[in-house]
């Protein structure tokens, strides 16, 4: 049996890769993908914990996270399209009308 620690590390690594991607990449789509990666890191850990504790709450939360992430993707991509129609770019460094 694979120990719980391994899953927790995997979850933490996936989460950190996502966080690193969000903070370093400048393309909106890639930043958005990185957020999904962070969520999936959480999902891996939650399912593993849920399995090892023989408690269903973790898996219930995972299902909710997947459903909400789908809604988030729909809204996020819609906003990106609206942005692209106005500005013809998806690069966050060029999206800087407001500063101060």
């Amino acid at each position: 049996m694979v120990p719980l620690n391994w899953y927790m590390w995997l979850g933490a690594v996936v989460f950190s890769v996502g966080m690193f991607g969000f903070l370093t990449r400048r393309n909106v789509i890639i930043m958005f993908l990185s957020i999904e990666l962070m969520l999936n890191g959480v999902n891996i850990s939650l399912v593993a914990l849920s399995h090892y504790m023989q408690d269903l709450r973790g898996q219930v939360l995972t299902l909710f996270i997947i459903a909400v992430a789908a809604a988030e993707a729909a809204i996020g991509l819609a906003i990106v399209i609206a942005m692209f129609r106005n500005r013809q770019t998806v690069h966050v460094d060029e999206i800087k009308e407001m500063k101060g």
Partner: protein
Amino acid sequence: MNMPDLQPLMPEIVFLGLALFVLLAELFIKSKETIGLMVIVSVAATAYMIPQSFGVTFSGMFISDGYSSFFKFIFLLNLILTILISIQYIQIERAEFGEYYTVLMFSTLGMMIMASAGDLIVLYLGLELMALSTYILAGFIRHDARSTESALKYFLLGAFSSAILLYGIMLLYGLTGTTDIMKLSSLLMKNGMRLQSIFAIVMVMVAFGFKIALVPFHMWAPDVYEGAPTSITAFMSVGPKAAGFAVIGRVFLTGLEGFSADWRLLLVVLSIATMAVGNIIAIQQHNLKRMLAYSSIAHAGYAVLGVIAGNTEGLSATMNYLLIYAFMNIGAFSVLVLLRNEQERIETLEQIKGLARNHPFASALMLIFMFSLTGIPPTAGFVGKFFLFRALVYSGYTWLAVVAVVFSAISAYFYLRVVMYMYMYEPEEGVTQDISTAAPLGLALLITSLMVIAIGIYPEPFVNFARLVVG
């Protein structure tokens, strides 16, 4: 199988049903005034059901008590005032889609669920319902690059903070084996993994810090507030912030009570940083919406003080402050909405020069709200700050109260500068200071200004009410 008791959930169920009804009705009814009126009637029906809904249901996942009801009243009030200031404004901005009202209602529903959450899963779902709806609203003027830019920034940072919140929730779940907020504290203490617990608490705190725009998690706020439609800026500078505080009160003061020394230290640092950055950077702003964004950051810093005090007195002072803040902040934004005319957006200090010559009444209202935001008696802002600082002094944080008063004095500079520009300058050439004449907007201004003065002169009922529901 026995049915769960739905009574505590009734206000939310009714509100959801009415929101869906408004969405359908909007297909057939073209008059936006009628839709707005329907929303206000729905809010009244929901508010009527709240006092009869007390109870706990779904094995502690959903709690309806005095605490949650007080916040729900703030959210519903926020919704009504936003609807009143929106009706003509979104026509001027040519963003007149009926979904506007439904999405506002969904966002408010999310806040109501957050305030009642007794379980981290419910909390997360409420938070996402609120946040996703607010992202849409921020980008509602689709043809305006600034509005979509603000929606994009809000969306990216909001989704990022939700992911951090989820990691914190996952850690708390792993450490305790439960997501029930009421059981967290004792289970965490029994578990004994102190370092891991504190790591989880920090993650959750960072996520909430993003939601209520505490420094250093505030960088989204000025851009989002400036770019979003002004009516939505008013909405989201009050609603999501109050919802964040509702959750912080529940999670930290009950759920994580055993770690109060640790998170209190963290909150003290965050609140000082928030008051400092909010008040000092606001001094440099010439755009009024941006100035009010920094002011709203600073006000989050004040409101946190009540949570730091940590007792009934402190929490009720925070709730009271949020109620007062709702009136004065929406009032200030209403004046900005009032100044939006067909030709131009009046948003900068230069554009409001000499406003008192052309529109003495609008200037007088702005004067009241600016005094209140500064905290000058006899306005409500003074009462709010007074009770916050008093609670802080009584729980032994006198030095922190002194710091807060100093920053409050600094804030007088940029609030009163607005008054100076309105009253002591001649109007600029070529700026048309036409004001809107919409009756609903006038009603919103009337309500907010009357309440700001009424609470300032006679605060007892409001203060006692907040104390009653917490105690």
